């Protein structure tokens, strides 16, 4: 039986997109746009694309408040029908780390962190957060549904 050409391409394709931009909330829309594009290329349906857009936002919430003089780095890795996204801060200084820690004690951020965890649990297949030498890193992975 012949496989549809589009599916065959999706199964074989692998692409990595890297974005880096100043850590400013106005620019998070760039990450959402990139995630939606990669998800569409992986064959996600509209609902799954919307889920991934929200999940990317939640990755930034789990990283904590954005601080001056830092950059956001985001890697979008598509392998077949799975999209993996890693986000991190670059150029984090001791001062900006302290500012971020103080910002996370803000009531809104405390509430958001709990809600964000619930959203990520529901929206993606896997997600996590860890601290590496350069600062916090948040990641997720979402596979296309086969119900299509």
């Amino acid at each position, binding site marked *: 039986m012949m496989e549809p050409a589009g599916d065959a391409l999706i199964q074989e394709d692998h692409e990595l997109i890297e974005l880096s931009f100043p850590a400013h*909330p*106005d620019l*998070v*829309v760039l990450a959402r*746009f990139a995630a939606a594009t990669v998800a569409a290329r992986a064959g996600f349906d509209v609902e799954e694309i*919307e889920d991934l*857009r*929200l999940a990317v*936002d*939640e990755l*930034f*919430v789990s990283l904590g408040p*954005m601080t001056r003089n830092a950059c956001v780095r985001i890697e979008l890795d598509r392998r077949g029908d799975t999209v993996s996204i890693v986000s991190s801060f670059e150029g984090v200084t001791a001062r900006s780390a302290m500012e971020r820690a103080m910002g996370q004690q803000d*009531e*809104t*951020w*405390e*509430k*958001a*962190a709990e*809600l*964000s965890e*619930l*959203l990520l649990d*529901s*929206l993606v297949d896997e997600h996590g957060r860890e601290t590496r030498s350069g600062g916090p890193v948040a990641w997720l992975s979402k596979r296309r549904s086969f119900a299509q």
Partner: protein
Amino acid sequence: MPVVVVTGEIDLAVAPSLRESLTELLAAGHCNIFVDLIDATFLDSIALGVLVGALEQCREAGGDLKLLVTEPRILRVLEITGLSATFSIHSSRDEVSSSNSNGGLRERLEEASQQ
């Protein structure tokens, strides 16, 4: 009853403006507030955190913060986080009008950057 109308994508960039609007209303003594999310298309956890914070302050003052929501994606976010049981959620602007017959303050908060 004041109505805060929120449109577009409410994310990390826009949530501070929403918080500011709600804080101003609370500071002015309003403890019964409607947030109209009918034309909102995206709501992240930061925006939800702002709404939950304002809801708690309204209830502490003896009032309530009610939501107007029809967009399925926004409703889904509220369901996932369990907040659909926390907020009083309405689906029609008529419900606001009827509880606002003496003319309420309307404040419009639009998405800062349209895509």
